[in-house]
């Protein structure tokens, strides 16, 4: 059954194999003595885990942009919302170990003199509730937003601009202290997850493996969708929306479900991202982040799924390298990548490797 999903997908086969290999090899190499040449420091494990969550985000963008033709400039919002939900759980886990030592309220709430938890913070001391909310919160927002937008046939550039407005509005909102999410400092100083210390090597490895597994599941799910009838309707909507509508397909429903699903995937990515970087703040909502994700997809190759993962890993590795070695050059490089990829590599880097095939 699983094999059927990726039988004709060489890139996907390679990607999944690599991820499996990473799940086995990274913990082993991390376990080697630290002077061994193949040793992977725990710090790098966390970095790799972070890349994988960003790759999952890119995958969710490719699903809607590559196969539905919706250029979303606001997927970072769903990612950040998932992150905030996870952040709320992690804040509740701190308990009495905060600076103010309040048994229930996070530090920033004590500081802002709240006397009790706001109602929307209730329940986040339970991990399973959090897991559900990680998918539900971005999902509901995407559903409502999509229902409004797709029903009234907002499409193309207009949709791009209002998704950007959405994430911008959320950013402004989360910067407000009154929102009850820590204002511009966001949520941070996390201590542990499910009782395991976030600083420990084992937890880092666990999070890395969880990210890799989530990416694999996300990939298979995306493949499942695009191989199904729904997927073929998606491509039809992308290539000729009016024709698909006239043929009797409920275009807005197709768009809505895939868009919502993609937002939930982005939410999961955000939830895995936050414990690995240790902070979530309103800057994650910034429109720049969302546009960057689109570029990862474009660089990797749109409408390939595995291309999105490749693009995300490549650019994020480049970003890490540039910002430590040549910080001034990074924006020049990123800008140049934007321009060159759109002008010269419409099929992305993986397009260079692929034989000419129908996309």
């Amino acid at each position: 059954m699983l094999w059927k999903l990726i039988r004709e997908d060489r890139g996907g086969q390679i990607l999944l194999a690599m991820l499996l290999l990473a799940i086995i090899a990274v913990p082993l190499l991390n376990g080697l003595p630290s002077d061994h040449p193949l040793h992977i420091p725990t710090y790098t494990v966390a970095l790799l885990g972070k890349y994988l969550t960003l790759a999952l985000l890119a995958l969710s963008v490719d699903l809607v942009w590559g196969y539905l033709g919706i250029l979303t400039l606001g997927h970072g919002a769903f990612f950040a919302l998932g992150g905030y939900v996870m952040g709320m759980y992690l804040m509740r886990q701190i308990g009495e170990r905060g600076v103010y030592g309040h048994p229930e309220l996070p530090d920033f709430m004590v500081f802002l003199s709240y006397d009790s938890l706001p109602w929307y913070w209730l329940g986040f001391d339970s991990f399973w509730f959090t897991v559900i909310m990680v998918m539900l919160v971005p999902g509901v927002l995407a559903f409502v937003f999509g229902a409004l937008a797709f029903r009234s046939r907002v499409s193309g550039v207009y949709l791009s601009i209002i998704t950007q407005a959405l994430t911008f509005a959320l950013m402004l909102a989360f910067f407000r202290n009154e929102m009850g999410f820590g204002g511009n400092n966001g949520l941070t100083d996390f201590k542990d997850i499910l009782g395991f210390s976030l600083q420990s090597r084992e937890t880092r490895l666990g999070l890395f493996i969880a990210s890799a597994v989530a990416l694999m599941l996300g990939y298979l799910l995306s493949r499942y969708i695009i191989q199904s009838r729904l997927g073929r309707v998606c491509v039809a909507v992308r290539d000729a929306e009016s024709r698909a509508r006239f043929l009797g397909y409920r275009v807005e429903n197709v768009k809505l479900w895939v868009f919502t699903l993609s937002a939930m995937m982005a939410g999961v990515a955000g939830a895995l991202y936050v414990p690995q970087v240790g902070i979530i703040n309103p800057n994650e909502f910034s429109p720049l982040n969302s546009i960057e994700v689109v570029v990862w997809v474009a660089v990797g190759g749109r409408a390939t799924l595995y291309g999105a993962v490749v693009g995300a890993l490549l650019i994020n590795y480049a970003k890490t390298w540039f910002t430590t070695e040549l910080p001034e050059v990074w924006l020049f490089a990123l800008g140049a990548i934007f321009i060159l990829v759109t002008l010269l590599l419409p099929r992305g880097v993986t397009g260079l490797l692929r034989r000419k095939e129908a996309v």
Partner: protein
Amino acid sequence: MTSRIIRWLLASGVLLACLAVSAGIQAQTDDQVLLEVQALLVSPNAPDKTVAIERLAQADHPRALEIYALLLDSKLYFNRADDFLYVIDNVVEGAPALALLSQETSLIERRRDYRRVAINNAQRTQIRRVMAQTGLNHERMEVRVGAVQQLMGDLDQDALTLIREAYVSETHGRVRDLMAVALAIDTLTSGDEAAQRDAISVLGGSLEPRGRVALVRYVEATDQPRLKTLAEQALVGIDQQVRFYKGLETVFFGLSMGSVLVLAAIGLAITFGVMGVINMAHGELIMIGAYTTFVIQQLMPNHIGLSVLVAVPAAFIVSGLVGIAIERGVIRFLYGRPLETLLATFGVSLVLQQAVRSIFSPLNRSVQTPEWMSGMLHFNPVFAVTWNRLYIILFCLMVFFLLLLILKRTALGLQVRAVSQNRAMARAMGVRSERVDMMTFGLGSGVAGIAGVALSQLTNVGPNLGQAYIIDSFMVVVFGGVGNIWGTLVAGMTLGVANKLMEPWAGAVLAKILVLVFIILFIQKRPRGLFPQRGRAAEG
């Protein structure tokens, strides 16, 4: 005690002698007055200082106001060694001390050498009165208004006498009105019934906040029912007017904010609206305009007033050229692929931002406001507008109508419209569409540059200037209806006013969020904006 009297006599003697001389031959220079005042102020006797204060006023010395202010601020010191006066902010060793007469700066060697020129309360009052007196006769109207207001803060008999004297010779309406209010406030408590009635009507016709306070007090205190009703009616009238002017002020703020939005968006209305090109680097073109203003001010530091005027065409040219370069280098390969254009121009915007950061440093640069743009235009005590906001509105309208003229009345405008409506047909009619694309994009970018000049007068000029405006600009264009620059004007002004109307109860950030949410919802209802394009072009 005796020594004091002797000293005082001596000082007064010197003074009298000097007075005689000055009255006699009028040959005494300002410097001599200053020397004399210095000698008096250094003296440990309080009456000497009173004389010194009087002396400065009598001589109508050009530095009198400066010295008074220094005395009130306790910044005047004297050196016990040379008995000279020094201006010192902070008496610590190594701090600078500015000699009052010679204007030379030296460094404080020992704290103990310097003693503050202390004045008592009576002298403070004296100084304030003298300052007010000088102020009441000052040639600039604003200074006279300030002087009256100063006196109204503490309305004693002295102050009233001063105002009454000045009222006779005063010619400017605003100053007269203010003085009348001051006198009426006094009459309200001291005059007989008829005078009180007059005073109420004077105060009722004025919006001066102090007059209103006086009326409120009067209503509480008076025991004459007829006058009380009269005063209450006057208060109702004042409050209505104040509310009206507050509303007017909000609308004005909204319009000036809307003008900024329109200025930022109008270039986009051309490139996005007319050409259908999503230019994410639009904000950076605005930023380039702002930096052009900065560079021009650096080039002509002595002509700040002129530099802004020079910057307008310069910014148009610089941003226009950059825009043409972007069009030729990137966008022309991507026509008909709006989403790819969006990404590529976003790349351009990152490069431009970083370029500015590398050239001008990542810090904000300050652009000076020319004198003719600062200050207020005063309508009445509760309604005054700053000149720079007023100029922004006028400037925005000017740019808008100029652009409208270009699009509707010139050959280029005709060709632009032709190409945007039907490219193939326009080409068939002999329009060089490539050239038109280039020129249109250059025009839109140049207008963005002009917007940058205006913004440089309002906000900080930094590498992030453009990013702050790009989303707003898109909102305005989309809200107004793509391809319609009238729509942009209406949308920008509407959003500006709506924002300012909501600010008092929602706060600036929440108001902005609400406006964004409103636009998102509005686009659901009317996907083509306020003024949608009709006909075939709309289907594209």
